[in-house]
């Protein structure tokens, strides 16, 4: 019995940090409507800064002062980020805000390694809370008890701040209607900045308070952000009470989940999240979001199939690509195969994101599932390669069918958070279930059969499947289903009113996208001869998002160009620099701020303008006639 009580108290102590980070995220979202993906990065920075300060400054005052000063420094960094970056994108579509803050996270990850090194850092014990308290033969660290008190204390302070101060009233008003608050003469800029500073302060404090419990490392940002997303999905985005209750719930589920499913404890949290989503899609304490505002800059040029000339150009490009083995060496062909595989992966996400309006931040899960599907079939069942390539992606289909069912219940930022959390769950299963997946060591020796083994043959295979995937998805875009999917994206209200079951249409699209991603993963497993948990990791999901964005999210097949350019650039970059995440993150931020239409989108806009200016006289006349009518 005492053991369970101690386990319960450990859970409560873990909840404190989680609550601090989640409440910060919720407060920022409430006012600015931005889901700050970089929140985990600020948490990590808080921990690193606190580590350095508490090491430098001795004594009790040095420790506690160091923790607070670290959080303040990180909050100041947050203010800079808000003023330099976020102010430029408050009116951009949600997807761009998510991506920009994600790019920031990538940059911080490399910066942290650059400054503090790649090794785990073990911080000091907290002065005054070094020992443990004996509870019927079980030990409870006294620092845990401190944290247990800390959680409700911060909740109380936040409550007083929002209920009793003028600033708090303004924040609550802005949460309900920020335009009205601005119309009443409140300086919105500084309100947003101060709210962001508070949110970042809470995240950094959460990180700083963790150092006596856990080692500081450069992967803690993603771990915490996934847990925080789960917390806000359960508790409801925008609710501080919700963040507290859900943080306790998730921490307890983690604490006891280890006892029930020692291998895959995260399953329990997932099950609870699934139940909450079915019963209350907006979280326990959340409110349904108003439908997303019409994104400005949304293209009004309706999509059309390729003209005869464009089709000819596409076929010519394919022929040239197919001729590559005639003059390129083996390394170039391997790179070519990898690019072809990522074209498949990118177009699958593009289908979901551009046609369906569903920006998945965890699309790598289905890529990875396809790869593992192939590896398991080839190694365990010993099936021939063709059978593996056909059956492997079915694991991606299965995963997409299960997770997609829950994910399409939500939209916008909730959808993004949920897909990311799902991908992390799949990743940790691959990582933890060592007996089946080999854990960190992966599954090795997945080699193609003789007919596809040579680099040129494998290249042709990948290129052929990529061309097929692009053509099939294009046909789907212009099929009745594609129109139903776009209708659901454009106006859920109208599509429901003309008999379209939007959720079912979106679910189908999710399954299609997941299966195609699984196919890409299946080929990838053969290309590399092995699979690892990283084949479903977050950075791969981000790669896919950037490829789509780079090509142009509002285009029909921009992802093809995006994938080719990005992948080639990426492979080159990794060979040139150690700091690929830093460069990549900066690149993402740059695209979002300076280049939001992507390569193909910018090109199309240019062509459209040219066509318009050349035919402007005639169209003016017709429009006059139409008006007169």
């Amino acid at each position, binding site marked *: 019995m005492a053991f369970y009580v101690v386990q319960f108290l450990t859970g409560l102590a873990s909840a404190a940090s989680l609550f601090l980070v989640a409440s910060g995220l919720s407060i920022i979202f409430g006012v600015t409507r931005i889901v700050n993906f970089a929140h985990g990065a600020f948490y990590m920075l808080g921990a690193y800064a606190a580590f350095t300060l508490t090491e430098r400054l001795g004594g009790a005052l040095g420790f506690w002062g160091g923790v607070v000063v670290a959080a303040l420094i990180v909050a100041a960094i947050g203010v800079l980020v808000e003023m330099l970056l976020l102010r430029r994108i408050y009116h951009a579509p949600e997807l761009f805000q998510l991506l920009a803050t994600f790019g920031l996270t990538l940059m911080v990850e490399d910066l942290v390694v650059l400054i503090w090194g790649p090794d785990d850092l073990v911080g000091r014990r907290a002065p005054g809370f070094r020992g443990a308290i004996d509870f019927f033969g079980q030990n409870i660290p006294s620092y845990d008890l401190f944290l247990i008190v800390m959680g409700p204390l911060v909740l109380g302070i936040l409550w007083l701040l929002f209920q009793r101060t003028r600033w708090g009233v303004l924040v609550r008003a802005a949460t309900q209607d920020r335009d009205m608050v601005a119309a009443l003469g409140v300086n919105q800029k500084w309100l947003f900045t101060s709210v962001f500073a508070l949110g970042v302060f809470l995240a950094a404090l959460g990180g700083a308070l963790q150092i006596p419990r856990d080692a500081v490392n450069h992967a803690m940002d993603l771990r915490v952000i996934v847990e925080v997303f789960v917390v806000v999905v359960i508790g409801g985005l925008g609710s501080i009470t919700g963040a507290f209750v859900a943080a306790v719930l998730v921490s307890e589920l983690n604490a006891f989940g280890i006892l029930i499913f020692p291998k895959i404890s995260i399953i329990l949290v997932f099950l609870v999240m699934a139940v909450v989503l079915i019963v209350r899609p907006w979280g326990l304490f959340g409110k349904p979001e108003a439908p997303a505002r019409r994104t400005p800059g949304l293209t009004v040029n309706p999509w059309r199939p390729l003209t005869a000339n464009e089709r000819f150009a596409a076929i010519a490009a394919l022929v040239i690509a197919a001729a590559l083995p005639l003059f390129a060496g083996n390394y170039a062909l391997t790179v070519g195969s990898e690019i072809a595989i990522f074209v498949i992966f990118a177009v699958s996400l593009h289908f979901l994101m551009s046609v369906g309006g569903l920006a998945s931040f965890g699309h790598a899960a289905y890529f990875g599932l396809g790869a593992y599907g192939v590896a398991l079939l080839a190694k365990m069942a010993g099936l021939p390669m063709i059978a593996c390539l056909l059956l492997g992606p079915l694991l991606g289909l299965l995963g997409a069918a299960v997770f997609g069912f829950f994910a399409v219940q939500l939209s916008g930022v909730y959808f993004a958070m949920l897909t990311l959390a799902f991908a992390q769950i799949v990743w940790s299963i691959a990582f933890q279930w060592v007996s089946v997946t080999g854990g960190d060591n992966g599954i090795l020796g997945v080699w193609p059969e003789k007919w596809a083994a040579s680099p040129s043959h494998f290249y042709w295979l990948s290129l052929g499947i990529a061309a097929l995937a692009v053509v099939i998805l294009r046909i789907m875009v212009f099929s009745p*289903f594609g*129109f139903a999917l776009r209708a659901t994206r454009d106006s859920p209200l109208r599509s429901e*009113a003309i*008999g379209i079951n939007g959720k079912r249409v979106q679910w189908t699209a999710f399954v299609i996208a997941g299966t195609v991603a699984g196919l890409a993963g299946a080929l990838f497993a053969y290309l590399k001869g092995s699979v690892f948990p990283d084949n479903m990791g977050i950075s791969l999901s981000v790669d896919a998002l950037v490829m789509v964005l780079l090509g142009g999210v509002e285009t029909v097949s921009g992802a093809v160009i995006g994938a080719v350019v990005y992948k080639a650039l990426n492979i080159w970059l990794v060979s040139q620099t150690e700091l690929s995440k830093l460069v990549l993150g900066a690149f993402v931020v740059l695209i979002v701020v300076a280049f939001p239409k992507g390569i193909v989108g910018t090109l199309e806009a240019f062509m459209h303008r040219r066509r318009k200016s050349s035919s402007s006289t005639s169209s003016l006349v017709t429009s006059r006639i*139409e008006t007169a009518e």
Partner: protein
Amino acid sequence: MSMVPTLLSVEGLTKSYGGVHAVRGVSFELRSGEILALIGPNGAGKSTCFNVLNGQIIPDAGRVRLLGEDITGKKPRAIWRMGVGRTFQITATFPTMTVRENVQVALVSYGQHLFNLCASTANHARDEAGRLLDLVGMGAYAERPCGELAYGDLKRLELAIALANRPKLLLMDEPTAGMAPRERIELMRLTARIAREQSIGVLFTEHDMDVVFEHSDRILVLNRGTLIAEGSPEEVRGNAQVRSVYLGEGLVYDARHREGASA
């Protein structure tokens, strides 16, 4: 008129929000080809009533029947499949498609082809879409991007979309809101003509009293969630209770006053 069968029958509709009765015991009937206006001051319960009919709100009590079949509490898309078209107070269309494609999507859905993954939509029911667009006078705009249309044209496009399932009943929530006076008259004349020709029953809510009294066969007046008057435009115009309800808002419809203004 009694020979025409009842299209829509509403019985004892009641809906309250935390102690506030939005609608209480509202009953009425609508026949095919009839144009029925639902009016009342703000907060009278028009929108609640309307949203119960189109399936967006489930009532606490009461029944809604379409040609005798119970449709209470069904989803909007199920109600659409039974032959109810609708337009919105603020137009809801698909801005990234052309005008024709907007109608084609509705026709795809009507033909149950939503999950067809390989056919080309461009040729799907192209002529039928063109016919519907001609009907509402939008034929010349068929290839225009919907996102470029003026508001009045969007309203007409919405009407074409609403007619795609060959509806028996048309629900129009403030059809002329946000339109210029001449456009209002044109849209309501068009609606009336289509309703008579295809014997579609029309139920609409409206704030513009000119539109209401000129274009409806019958008027229902709601106040504080209950039906206070029902009848032809003349009967409602002469109703003392209706006058007092609107007097409270400082608005009296007076035929003589209007004649004087237009002279």
